[in-house]
């Protein structure tokens, strides 16, 4: 049980999730944040395979509650770095619901990976925004679609990936999870997915939509755009290949 609770620090379950989000808030460097988002949950999955007992069934409602609370909290978070942390917490908590069905550990590693990559990219994207505007804060500037079209495009697609929009792997991972859950759990999982979508559009409205007030700001370069697009493209391709459609 102790090992499971330690794992719950890495695959964050409320209130142990405070550790993960607190650590993210403390880190200033975007690459460090990104690395934490990618590696931290994999440690949790790694610990799970050493657990002497299977994941108890009461972890499922706990996981759904954590995912639900963080999804709900996402609705009013405007700082992009914090948003990335919350959406990662919400998605990664669902790994416990999948783990309770006793799947292959490789499946769990992949599940955590699908929900870590988009937040990690968002953590990286927050850096150029902070450099240009002093903070990556929804509603602070707005209208980026007009002055930073490349940045806006990459940000929009990354947010869509983070909220498990098809054809990104998060969607297929969610389908895989729904298959493993019972009727009530599946309804809960879908409700969380709905709130993610809501939170994603709210974030986009704060950044890319609205009147353009920053004509003189320079957009991200072609190379950066290609790099982000390449990562997202590879992410989709990997998801299509490895998830098998989720069902």
């Amino acid at each position, binding site marked *: 049980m102790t090992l499971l609770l330690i794992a719950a620090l890495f695959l964050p379950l409320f209130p142990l999730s*405070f550790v993960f989000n607190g650590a993210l808030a403390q880190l200033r460097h975007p690459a460090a944040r990104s690395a934490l988002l990618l590696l931290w949950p994999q440690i949790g999955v790694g610990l799970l395979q050493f657990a002497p007992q299977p994941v108890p069934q009461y972890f499922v409602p706990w996981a759904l509650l954590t995912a639900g609370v963080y999804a*709900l909290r996402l609705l*009013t978070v405007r700082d992009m770095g914090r948003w990335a942390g919350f959406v990662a917490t919400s998605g990664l908590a669902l790994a416990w619901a999948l783990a309770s069905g006793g799947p292959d550990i490789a499946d769990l590693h992949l599940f955590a990976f699908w929900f870590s990559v988009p937040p990690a990219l968002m953590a990286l994207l927050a850096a150029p925004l902070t450099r240009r505007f002093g903070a990556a804060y929804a509603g602070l500037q707005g209208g980026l679609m007009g002055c930073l079209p490349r940045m806006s495009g990459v940000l929009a697609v990354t947010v869509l990936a983070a909220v498990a929009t098809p054809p990104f792997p998060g969607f297929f991972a969610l*389908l895989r999870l729904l298959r493993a859950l019972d009727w009530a759990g*599946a309804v809960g999982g879908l409700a969380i*997915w709905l709130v993610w979508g809501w939170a994603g559009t709210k974030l986009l409205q704060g950044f890319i*939509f609205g009147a353009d007030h920053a004509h003189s700001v320079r957009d991200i370069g072609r190379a950066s755009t290609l790099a982000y697009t390449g990562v997202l493209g590879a992410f989709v391709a990997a998801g299509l290949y490895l998830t098998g459609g989720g*069902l």
Partner: protein
Amino acid sequence: MDKLTALLPATPLLSAFLITLLADGSRRRIARLSVGFSALTFLLAAASLALYVVEREPQWVSFNSGWGSLYLDPLTSVMALMVAGISFVVHVYSVRYMAEEPGYARFYILLDLMSAAILLMVAAGDLVTLLVAWHLVGVLLYFLLGHDAARPAAQRYAFWTFFTYRLGDLPLVLAAVLLYQAYGTLALPTLFERIASAPQAPTVLGLPLPTLVALLVALGAFARSAQFPLHTWLPYTMEGPTPVSALMHAGVVNAGGFIINRFAPVFVHAGGVLHLVFAVGLVTAILGSILMLTQNDIKKSLGYSTMGQMGFMFVECGVGAFSLAIYHLIAHGLFKGTLFLGAGSVIGNARKHDGVPHDDVYTFVVERKPVASRLPWVVAAVITVVVPFVVLGLSRWLVGGNFVGEQGAIILLFFGWVTGAQLLFATYRLRVDSPWRLMAMIILSLVIVVAGYTLIERGFDLFLYPDRVLSGQIYAAASIPLATFEVLVAILTAAIVVGWLVTYYAAANGRAGGRKASPLRLALYSLITREFYVADVYAWLTQATLGLSRRLNVWLRWV
């Protein structure tokens, strides 16, 4: 034929990709490329339909072991042609309409992606492909409606649309998961075969699975096609560019009718759900029509008109006339697309001419025309009640023979009766030089339209549902006990006949509209102008949820 099917969604996708590469190129080049690919898609869809008509054999094409398959059947071929046709017209219209707008390349990329997503949706051969395409349509619509990034209203209503669509996606996802768990396949043809062989075997929450799945699919369809109370997004999406409104009202919003037809083999085992579909459709049709009449904005009025039409489409599904619903959505798509694309011209004309008809004195003195008259009200009332009834009944009898046994056909005849009677009443109210001649011409037109419509609808039904057993099963599932039905028919008949007699009497004696508005009527009018407070309830729920989110964040110190 399978290659053509694959090319249908691939062609606009390729166009979007090429425009992305040319994003910095000239607008003319982007438009030419996109319109060219759109024309090619239309030709491919036409060829696909023609090949199907020749071969008459549905095909299932898979590119992957699990999902990513396409299914070409009559429904796919007809819907693909309609979608490609409307998309092509919208592409051409947008060339000049969007010429002054920022984000020209982005608009065409999104338009092409939307075409690809809709074509993939109608051609999806398995549950996952269907879900992916179904959901992508909502996402792309969000960005298309919010194309003008600087307008807060456009963003607000684009969000409403996105949220309602995602709400509707939930039951569909759940239905897909349940179907896969129970029948162990993703492929739609195999799935429907297994359901037909063991329809009642699996149960969930004490309900037979097909009933539950049909209910979930219907809920998804309600959200997608703006059925009450999930309709609030539709009239407000006029904030988006007009070509997007046209595409949405002519194509996207019809997806509800499509998905019900796609899952027809499930609905034959869910008669109760069909009755629910009928009830929701009827309420939506009535409320949509009422709300349309109270609008003073042409585009919003068209929006509510679409809501009413979608209601009728669901009524048709609810009585088992699935093919008629597809026929309706195609007809509606064509005329509504035309209305949207012509809305600008109507507004322009209205600015030049007030359109108010001259009164009798002006006509007689200035224009030197004889004073207009109209038919005696009793004669007009009898014609109104009898003629549509006879015309509809005869034309239906000529093509169908045994329509008296089909409850759905009789209910649809009632709708036709009321619609025909409305037309004749509108004719009666016109004061013209020769009312008899006008009435004769209108009746002749009615005969031609009804006979043509009935013949085409019959042919369309045979094409779309060549399996007559399935078609019969759908009608049977939608039926209610005969005694109840006969009582309902008698009440409706009496209500229509008496209602029209009273209406004619009131119109002839100048009583219609002459009374002072009672407090009840005023309250009702307020209720309608506030659109039944549905949007207000949603706004309150939204604020409550956001308030809870804010409080949670404060309590938990933002970690």
